[in-house]
């Protein structure tokens, strides 16, 4: 019975079972048995969680300035399990950003961005940018005071970008000010543009990984040929494990720290302390330490340098063979970013 069904399918979707088997049992280098190395699948899984919880939320959320906040209140208070799905969505977004950053750190500090994987690094930077934009647009959709004013500040910062600033800001905001048009736009970005970009980039990312293979290492300890294990079921099960652990963790967090709601956005009243989400603390602190234009330009430069790092690192290593300058520079940058973030968090939470 099942074999005739398989035959029926095979005649219409001719997939070579051998190719499938080969695909599924791609040998995965042994070192991936260490958790530090599984951080790529983690944000991908969390994106899946976001997509599902996000679609669920979209059934109840209304992207209009009059109704957005109330629809979120409704989700929290009236819709069955609304508080849970929403809290999951929020916690998962935080975890996704953390996971992306950790994955990036792993890739960076193991030099896995080097030739021939430079392209994948660029794509990864794109994925990072998209993820951060997800966070920003998503948070603005709630239309709390901080959403509104955060978006206003972001709009003003965008305006300071030389040449394209004002038009870019207008495009993102849907006008000169944050309002209903902004909400509609952010919603389109959040559930349309950004997911499409992310999936596209992800496909490219995965394809390149499959084409180039996972970076293999020559560890001092293991001489000879590197050991491998199979993708399915071993590595898959590792990823499943991570997935289930995350679901459990995030559910507990949703129970103990459910996501609440602050005041509704009021264009006439600016709250005394505007702050962005935690992943933008470093930019916020940098902005406070320097001027607007300088901050925008320097952060832009920083982003460009980070994106182009494989090329820069390549140039360094051509000049000084086997230089591990990247590691030192990377460590400094991480410390600096961490310091800025912690400083801002400290100031925000302890002096007000």
């Amino acid at each position, binding site marked *: 019975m099942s074999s005739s069904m398989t035959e029926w399918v095979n005649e219409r979707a001719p997939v070579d079972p051998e190719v499938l088997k080969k695909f599924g049992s791609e040998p995965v280098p042994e070192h991936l048995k260490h958790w530090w190395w599984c951080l790529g699948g983690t944000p991908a899984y969390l994106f899946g969680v976001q997509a599902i919880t996000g679609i*669920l939320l979209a059934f109840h959320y209304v992207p209009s300035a009059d109704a957005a906040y109330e629809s979120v209140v409704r989700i929290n208070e009236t819709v*069955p399990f609304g508080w849970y799905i929403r809290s999951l969505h929020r916690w998962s977004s935080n975890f996704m950003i953390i996971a992306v950053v950790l994955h990036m750190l792993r890739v960076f500090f193991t030099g896995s961005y080097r030739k021939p994987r430079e392209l994948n690094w660029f794509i990864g930077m794109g994925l990072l940018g998209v993820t951060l934009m997800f966070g920003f647009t998503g948070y603005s959709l709630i239309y709390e005071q901080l959403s509104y004013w955060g978006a206003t500040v972001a709009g003003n910062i965008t305006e300071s970008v030389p040449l394209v600033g004002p038009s870019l800001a207008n495009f993102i905001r849907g006008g000169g000010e944050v309002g209903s048009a902004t909400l509609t736009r952010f919603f389109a970005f959040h559930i349309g543009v950004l997911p499409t970009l992310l999936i596209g980039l992800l496909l490219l990312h995965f394809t390149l990984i499959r084409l180039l293979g996972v970076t293999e290492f020559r560890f001092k300890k293991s001489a000879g040929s590197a050991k491998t294990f199979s993708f399915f079921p071993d590595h898959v099960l590792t990823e499943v494990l991570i997935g*289930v652990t995350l679901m459990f963790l995030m559910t507990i967090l949703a129970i103990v720290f459910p996501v609440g709601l602050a005041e509704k956005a009021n264009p006439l009243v600016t709250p005394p302390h505007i702050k962005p989400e935690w992943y933008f603390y470093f930019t916020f602190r940098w902005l406070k330490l320097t001027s607007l234009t300088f901050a925008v330009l320097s952060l832009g430069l920083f982003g460009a340098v980070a994106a182009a790092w494989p090329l820069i690192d390549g140039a360094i290593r051509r000049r000084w063979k086997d230089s591990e300058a990247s590691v030192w520079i990377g460590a400094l940058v991480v410390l600096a970013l961490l310091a800025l973030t912690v400083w801002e968090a400290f100031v925000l939470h302890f002096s007000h």
Partner: protein
Amino acid sequence: MENDRRSFFLSLLTLGSLGAGYGLFGFFSGRFLYPVEGSARTAKMFVGFTDEIPPRESVQFASPTGETFLLTNTGDGVDPYQAYSSVCPHLGCQVHWEGDHQRFVCPCHGGIFDAAGRPVAGPPARDKQSLKQCSIVVEGRSLYALVEVT
């Protein structure tokens, strides 16, 4: 052999537990998506005063969602005030109340309903379609209808 069986068993357990966990999550999502019960909100809407509707007369009223109803005073002692949708279930024409005959009549194809909205003649009788009832609340001399608001 033993290993295979154990391995199979473990796989079953793994899949089972995963299924249970994610399955319950899926159930929650289903509940989340399904429209909330009673979210079609009903309200008690004032229609008029009892002394404004003599026995065997009727008065038409509309709910906030635009549904039209006929409130009739059947003249019966116990529960004289009744309300039914004035939309004929056959093809949607407006029915009218004939107090003398204690019946609703649809002019389009001759559908006739008794005082309780049950079809007695015409296409609605053939298809066994009644007039939708609307609950009436009487408080003192005020008449309220329980109508859908959204």
